[in-house]
């Protein structure tokens, strides 16, 4: 199976207006797809549609290579979903939560123990969830989602509210999963995260996909047509990427005045601002 997710002209309307307005994109198997956009853009709604928590008004959705209407309960055994709310049993300990979900998923308890160790939660496994920090809860939720080794993983802002060390740990884990062939659909506000993890990103605004491609493709596609030159005297000169600009660089080089040459590529946040005029 090469295509894990495909949306064609998907529309969903709430009472307040269009949540998704002709959304189309596809995610190949083994890819990490970053779904970027500001709050209310439709990211979580898209995950809810893809996990059958909501139903589309129109358009086509294919999941795991088949129309979503044909996706069965058994197919959902191949899917893991981490939502923006970590639904854990607060009166249970971390270990009890893992054991409970492992039994529900018919997974060995050893797998739960292995995940606790990988998430750095093994030492605090007896702690009740209600006494855990937000970061710990997020790691427990991630461990729960990974218990049954899903082939397709939906992660709704998985590193939101985590400290930098935990974010790094989560990133390392996700990259390991990618190496193992897991397809990951990731929504995030964090542009550095998208840059680091994603093979492909889609930028969503007001229910519409405004652009998509690999982070590098997007940076090149929306690159500024300018080059910054620093001279030996410390002066910064900006030239265009044209024959005149090349002539200027050559001239400075001949005179021994050329120190550095940098082309200006926007980051993903700048690209988003450029395309939508809105902040994340």
């Amino acid at each position, binding site marked *: 199976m090469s295509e894990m997710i495909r949306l064609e002209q998907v529309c969903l309307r709430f009472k307040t207006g269009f949540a998704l307005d002709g959304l189309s994109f596809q995610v190949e198997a083994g890819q990490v797809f970053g779904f970027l956009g500001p709050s209310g853009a439709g990211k979580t709604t898209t995950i809810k549609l893809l996990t059958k928590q909501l139903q589309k008004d129109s358009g086509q959705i294919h999941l795991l290579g088949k129309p979503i209407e044909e996706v069965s309960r058994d197919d959902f055994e191949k899917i893991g*979903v981490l*939502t923006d709310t*970590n639904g*854990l049993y607060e009166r249970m300990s971390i270990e009890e939560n893992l054991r409970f979900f492992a039994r*529900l998923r018919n997974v060995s308890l050893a797998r739960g123990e292995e995940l606790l160790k990988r998430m750095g939660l093994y030492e605090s496994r007896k702690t009740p969830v209600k006494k855990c920090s937000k970061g710990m809860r997020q790691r427990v939720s991630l461990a729960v989602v990974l218990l049954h080794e899903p082939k397709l993983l939906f992660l709704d802002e998985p590193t939101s509210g985590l400290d930098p060390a935990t974010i790094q740990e989560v990133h390392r884990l996700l990259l390991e999963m990618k190496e193992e062939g897991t397809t990951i659909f990731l929504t995030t506000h964090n542009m550095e995260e998208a840059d680091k993890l994603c093979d492909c990103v889609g930028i969503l605004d007001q229910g519409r996909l405004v652009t998509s491609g690999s982070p590098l493709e997007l940076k090149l596609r929306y690159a500024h047509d300018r080059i910054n030159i620093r001279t030996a005297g410390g002066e910064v000169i900006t030239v265009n990427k044209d024959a005149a600009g090349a002539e200027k660089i050559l001239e400075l080089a001949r005179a021994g005045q050329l120190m550095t040459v940098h082309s200006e590529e926007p980051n993903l946040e700048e690209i988003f601002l450029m395309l939508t005029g809105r902040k994340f």
Partner: protein
Amino acid sequence: MNLKKTGILYGKDLNDFMKNPGISVAALIPVLFVVLYRSIGLADAMGDYASYFLLNIGTVMSIAMVALLLVSTSVAEEKEKFTLRTLMMSNVRASEFLLSKILVTLTVLLICNTLIFILSGSALSALPFYLLCCILGSASLIMFSACIGIMARDQMSTSIYQIPIMLLVMLPAMLSEFNSFIGTLASLTPIAAMMNLFGNFQAGQLASAASLQALAVMLVWIAVPSLLFAWLYRRKGIDN
């Protein structure tokens, strides 16, 4: 429906009930009430009537509180804390989820009512039939509780629906001895109907028109919330 999953959910729900003092203490209140009545000597002053009085009032309180409280509060809490969504994403069906809650309610109810029965001093030979009556009498309230669980957004809002139904079924049954009109009204409530059925059994008049009437009242009370539940579930689903 996967019975193994239901069993796993049942274990979790029972464990959660015991760890949740807000619910477990409420379930014990009718038992404690009977213990209190016995320990301060009020029951002794009543003579032969004490056994009937304690069983009646303890059962009414127990069924009205436990049957109505447990499913709705538990479903609402799972919605409020998003654990229901995690369960649905873990391939749990709504039927497995609800059956587990209903089984936990019945377990708690049967344990509490067995204690009430023993503490009231009733003849132990009647215990099996009494428990059967308890299941019949509580079924309608358990279904109402499931409806409330679907309608309520969170635990706080469950009480808006619970209290009127609790008063409707509990008060006439508790006050039926004091006024004939209330007594007639009470006979149309499921708990009083079950106590009437049990009373007929103890009096050796199980095969009577009064028993049939009591059974009919209970069945109607079971049918109404069951239909309401089916309608609500089709309209709103479990995790609305």
